[in-house]
């Protein structure tokens, strides 16, 4: 998958700093189907909008939507810093 930025910065969604654009690269099976229903899937562009107080949920931006995820849930998601080229854009680029 072509990446627009250096690709080696992979981390857990729990550790992704605020406001940094990233791409989902792996979701543990535990919450995979629930997260997928919200559009959090392999390849989804993702970023962190905010953190709730007292170690509360992280507020994740997925496209137009904002989804609050408990910290324990964010630990099950791996992300890579940088935005992967979307599949649609890739398809349009290839004639």
């Amino acid at each position, binding site marked *: 998958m072509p990446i627009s930025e250096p690709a080696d910065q992979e981390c857990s969604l729990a550790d992704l700093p605020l406001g940094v654009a990233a791409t989902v690269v792996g979701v543990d099976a535990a*919450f995979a189907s*629930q*997260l*997928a*229903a*919200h*559009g959090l*899937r392999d390849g989804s562009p993702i970023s962190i*909008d*905010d*953190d*709730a*107080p*007292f*170690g*509360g*949920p992280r*507020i994740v931006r*997925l*496209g*137009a*939507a*904002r*989804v*609050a*995820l*408990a910290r*324990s*849930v964010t630990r099950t998601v791996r992300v890579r810093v940088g935005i992967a080229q*979307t*599949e*649609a*854009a890739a*398809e*349009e680029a290839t004639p």
Partner: protein
Amino acid sequence: VSAVEVTELTCRAPAVEATLPAVEPAPSGRRPVVAIVGRPNVGKSTFLAQASGRYAETANLPGTTVGVSAREIRIHGREAMLVDLPGIFTLEDRSDGLPPFWQLLLEAHPDAVLVIADAGDLARHLPLALACRDLGLPIALAANLTDEAAERGIELDVGRLSQLLGAPVHPTVGRRGIGVQAAVADAVRLAADRARGGRHAARRAGPATPYRPDLVRRVAGLARELATPAGTAALEPALGRAVASGLCPPRRAATLASAATLEPERWRVAQRWAAQVVRERAVPARLADRLARKVTSPWPGLPLFAAVVLGSLGATMLIGSLLSAVLSGAWGALVSPVLTSAVRAVIPVHALAAATLWAFDSGLLAMLSVGIPFILSFYVILAVLEDSGYLAATAVLTDRVFNALGLPGRAALPILAATGCNVPAIYGTRVLDSRRERVLASFLIVLTPCSARSAVVIAALAPFAGWGVALGAFGVVALVAVGAGVAANALVPGHQSPLILELPPLRRPVARQVAAKAWFRFRSFVRTATPVMLAGSFVLGLAYETGAIVPLEAAIGPTIGWLLGLPAVAGIALVLAFLRKELALQLLLVLAIAEYGAGASSLGAFLSPGQLFVYAVVTAVSIPCAATLATLADELGWRTAATITAGVLGVALVAGGVVARVVGVA
């Protein structure tokens, strides 16, 4: 579904409001049925209210009957049924104890599906439309919230989308009714065509599949397998039954069984299509969107949360006390005297007449002076918070704190509301996902002293032991409640699921929707609580007036004395307080005067400050009042209501016993 949005979980559905009533034969033999499907927060209920001109709530709440309601509409001279379904993310979603969503959908026997999507977030809404289409049902798409999308600089190529989807697409603005009639009419037309042309017409004309050929082949292969008698053995039980009963033809069952492979493909297709039909231009962020970010951040989110909570409770109490005073004044002046003389004239037996008055005078007055002022006004405020999308923000802010009690952050509001009145607070637990969460929250709510119980604590302690002691009693009660909550979390089987919650955008609530929602819930409360209040008042009144209470006093006297160090009359007053908490003190005085004579007209005359402290703590914690018990039973069933009541009573007696020993009265 463990993370259905707060705003969708607004209220229990009216238990199958109309189960597709028998209709007079239409040309096809029955009215065409249109099912309405959409993700939560897409403005579905507003859309429906516009489409049918009537308000009804639907939600997929745990522990209630299937949340499906149907209503008849007449549009462009055509009669049809609109079937209203809970908001969902995928067809496979299911709530506690309910069948999967696809089963709810198919059991309504829809002829067409009207999918409501967010025009501003098409890539995440189209997969559901594709899934519905894959069931072999004709679909129409309402690209709703186009006004919000336009404000975000998003425009749709509706013609192109319609082409891709092979279905009519209507841009709509549900709250203003724009495009709603056209979308519904189109869906009804599709449904009527299918109902007339038989089940197979629509599929033949169905659009070409956008999926990868290997996936399509795999699903087709599975469908062939399922057509054989042995093929269904490997299916999950619900799907197997659906195939056996004919609800799911093999092709449909194959689609549902292949959800795990089809869903990612649907999302890919949706993303591709969205890229083709969405035109986006850069515009400054909407005020509502900027605000939405602010309300969930620690600053200014937390102070704002405190202000909203205090404001809500303050407004409820203020409006409540005002209305309560007016209503009970009017009742006392106008109804009570007439009722009293009428009952005494009709019923010659004194005790029976008095008990009847307990029921119809005091009982109805309690409903009137608590129900309308406090509960209705709280419902209005709750509906405003829900519809504005703010309730979800409170869930995020307080999530971590409430996790310790086995509850998600959403429980904050109902539990805080309990300090006003327990009854609306218990209904408020409908914003919670699972039955476990609702039971735990209800337990905490019943432990929380409502305003009436708080008044007893203050009135019993402040004059005789001082304000400091009264505050101390509240401290003890809070400790007891938190301790009991932590214990209950450990004891009740199951785990709390971690928060996964899509935050709704902030929206200005629609007055009509708020009023309808509040009224709908209030009606449900009145229906449940009134009979219990009347019957409870009558029985207690009869026991009191006939002196049947004396043996009870003899029975519980020694226990109360040993455990709590209180005289027997105090025990009786506690029992009678079941009817109305705020009467706990008046009842105690009445009983004490009857027992000890006029010298006992002051609490301080027959109870020491220590005893008063114990009495106040036990009253503040103890058993729920009749209205609360009725609400618990209505919401969670009698067994759970009885368990919670017993649990709370146990906690109150143990806490009272401990306090009595600490202050040295027992």
